[in-house]
């Protein structure tokens, strides 16, 4: 009898220990991924205590890598430059599945219902759509154009409401709208939209797809509420202008900041951030900044816009007050600032400095650095709250 009474609690204690180490329960809402581009790895990070949890290796060429999340925020889909698509369980830090789906890819998106993952490819140019669960191919959309049936590089791929994907054809000057509501892609093509679309974005409400043009000034808008009306040009003087300043790093449109009244856009090849009225797309003013802007990102409450810059002025981050429309802070987090990501409600921002080998976390109210995490050539930072945002 005594024996039983003594051993049962001991056995119970040990089995509890085992359970703890193998399946410590936690949520994923405060997790994220930092790309370590030189070593083909990622670090899984956590924003509540500002720590790195683990590293996942073997992800191939991660230059220009990006990440989308499954809607349960448990899986990260990492899109690599070498055509690799890797599904990672961020709770167990394990690769669930990895495929090489093309020779050269540039980005991806996840569908409205979370069931499809789309990848845009440079080579062979086109979009491939996969089952987000199994990574099996659902649809292959080669971006063929012209009489010789050449294949264009595809850029600016985003998800849109109604189980649609929108993307631009860099070599063909076209925007394509792929509707997958029926399970098979139904494509609408918009031709001669303007020369060399190089990136695209969708407004946070999912209504407007906007493509930037490299080959000429101006932007192209497709209203997804009325796709039958075709594309429209806005901001005819947006671009490199008559002087055609060289651009050492293509500005990103994905990070475009939208506040209630204004959109803040990176000028192409010039050291300014443009402020545009969101109602009529007319330029309100331009704000002189440290260098050629790359990412122009609004804090979730829209009160500040954070900007990083192209080589060789890429050691700096500036903060713009969106009400006063001027730069209120200049920070120097280290060499080669590549990306910034706000915590879900914006009290902090994580900034990656590739050549300094670290991520610095700033308090966005007083601009104090609250932590730094060593990383191996960090580039993109992606937090899980992206799972529930259109276009991210």
């Amino acid at each position, binding site marked *: 009898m005594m024996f039983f009474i003594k051993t049962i609690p001991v056995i119970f204690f040990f089995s509890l220990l085992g359970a703890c180490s193998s399946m410590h329960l936690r949520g994923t809402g405060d997790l994220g991924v930092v790309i370590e581009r030189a070593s083909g790895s990622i670090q899984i990070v956590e924003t509540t205590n500002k720590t790195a949890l683990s590293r996942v290796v073997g992800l191939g060429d991660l230059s*220009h890598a990006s990440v989308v999340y499954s809607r349960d925020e448990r899986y990260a889909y990492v899109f690599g430059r*070498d055509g690799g698509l890797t599904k990672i369980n961020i709770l167990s830090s394990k690769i669930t599945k990895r495929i090489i789906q093309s020779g*050269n890819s*540039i980005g991806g998106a996840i569908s409205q219902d979370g069931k499809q993952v789309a990848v845009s490819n440079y080579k062979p140019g086109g979009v491939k759509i996969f089952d987000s669960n199994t990574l099996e191919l659902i649809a292959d959309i080669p971006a063929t154009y012209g009489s010789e049936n050449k294949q264009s*590089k595809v850029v600016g791929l985003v998800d849109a409401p109604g189980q649609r994907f929108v993307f631009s054809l860099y070599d063909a000057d076209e925007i394509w709208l792929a509707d997958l509501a029926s399970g098979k892609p139904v494509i609408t093509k918009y031709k001669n939209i303007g020369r*060399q679309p190089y990136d695209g974005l969708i407004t946070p409400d999912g209504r407007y797809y906007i493509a930037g043009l490299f080959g000429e000034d101006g932007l192209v808008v497709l209203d997804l509420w009325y796709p039958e009306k075709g594309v429209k040009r806005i901001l005819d003087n947006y671009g490199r202008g008559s002087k055609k300043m*060289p651009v050492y*790093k293509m500005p990103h449109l994905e990070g475009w900041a939208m506040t209630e009244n204004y959109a803040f856009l990176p000028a192409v090849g010039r050291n300014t951030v443009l402020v545009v009225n969101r109602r009529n797309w007319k330029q309100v003013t331009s704000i002189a900044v440290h260098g050629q802007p790359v990412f122009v990102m609004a804090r979730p409450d829209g009160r500040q816009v954070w900007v990083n810059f192209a*080589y060789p002025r890429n050691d700096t981050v500036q903060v713009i007050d969106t009400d006063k429309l001027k730069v209120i802070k200049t920070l120097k987090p280290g060499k080669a600032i590549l990306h910034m990501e706000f915590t879900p409600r914006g009290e902090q921002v994580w900034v990656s400095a590739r050549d300094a080998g670290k991520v610095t976390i700033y308090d966005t109210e007083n601009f104090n650095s609250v932590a730094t995490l060593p990383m191996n050539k960090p580039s993109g930072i992606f937090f899980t709250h992206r799972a529930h945002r259109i276009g991210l």
Partner: protein
Amino acid sequence: MVNHHHTGIVLKLLLIPMVLVYFSSGYAAEEISNISVQRQAELQNLLIQDCGSCHGMTLKGGLGPALTTDALKNKSRKMIEVTIALGRPGTPMPPWNRILTKEEIHWIVNILYTGVRL
């Protein structure tokens, strides 16, 4: 499309005088490099990271074409050097002569033709 064609031809015509001007400005292929070891490391980093942002970090191509030894082997070295120095007007390829010296560009081209250790 018609537009593209025109710019293509105009660009090619423009390139001939550009090449001539570039090489007549005292630029000959000198083989001895007096670039410091530290600068060489910086250039290597620039090539992989910053050229890599358009050409891919393994230089197998991105928005810009592949710059691997294989991809370049049948292309004129001078042409490649001029492209890096002056860029390709009408395309995103920027001129690097505002940032890099001729010698540094020459060093980069040497690296490209002998193969980059990634």
